[in-house]
């Protein structure tokens, strides 16, 4: 049984927390997710292993990018009945501020939800959502389900 099938067996929406728990890379970053109604916020706790510049210190740009990409994937999974994980086609990241050694949050917006491809934007912030530290926009390939 595939990962998503095993999580979709129960009634109701897919349990995003259980999904993250089964993805080794998300566990390595330390990612968690909070769902409040339709709003999904992901959390990247501060971990020394996510640091890119120990003298500042600042989070690694790649760790921030991976966190944003995973946030986009989670948002797409929560909105669709996809049986496979969405695959990134291209991503573009704007680094706006250095990531301080503290908790980071992210929220994704699906700009266009197509039949095969979705366009997603993700913003990451720390203490203040008005002052984002990074922004991702990208295209993700969705394998159509049997019904679509």
């Amino acid at each position, binding site marked *: 049984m*595939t*990962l998503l099938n095993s999580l979709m067996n129960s009634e109701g929406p897919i349990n995003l927390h259980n999904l993250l728990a*089964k*993805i*080794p*890379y*998300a*566990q*390595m*970053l330390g990612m968690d997710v909070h769902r409040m109604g339709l709003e999904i916020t992901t959390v990247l706790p501060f971990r*020394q*292993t*996510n*640091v*890119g*510049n*120990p*003298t*500042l210190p600042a*989070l*690694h*740009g*790649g*760790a921030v*990018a*991976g*966190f944003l*990409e*995973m946030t986009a994937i989670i948002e797409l999974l929560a909105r669709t009945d996809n049986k*496979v*994980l969405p*695959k*990134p*086609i*291209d*991503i*573009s*990241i*704007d*680094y706006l501020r*250095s990531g301080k050694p503290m908790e980071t949050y992210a929220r994704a917006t699906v700009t266009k939800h197509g039949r095969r491809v979705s366009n997603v934007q993700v913003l990451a912030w720390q203490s203040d959502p008005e002052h984002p530290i990074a922004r991702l926009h990208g295209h993700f390939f969705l394998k159509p389900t049997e019904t679509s």
Partner: protein
Amino acid sequence: MAHVPHAQQLGMQVVQVRRDACTAKIPYDVKLVGDPDTGVVHGGVITSLLDNTSGVAVTCALDEFRTMATLDLRIDYMHPATPGADIFGYCHCFKVTRNVAFVRGTAYHDSPDNPIATSMASFMLGTKGSSVHRYSQETAK
């Protein structure tokens, strides 16, 4: 890269440096997997490799050490990485202006002609604070 905690976490190692370019690799590890059904590593691993290798390529291309910050990074994913295979990243800093450096990169297994992903990054030079890229260069030498 030995002084970059996240690069250490991913197992990143410098393979070769040139006047304006750097090759690094990440050996396959199950902890990097993004899709447990297939064993394919997460895109964030490729992004980290290309981001970090691009930064080292800029340091190599500069005549003297300067601090820098990534302005933007674009990644195009060509095909999934093969489970079990090491991933290499080759990044070339092809232009340095007074304030900005531009870098192209490729992630691959056997040959850059068959890329897993390609990248384009720009770096702002002379930003405040110190940068770990200095250590990366020293390690590479």
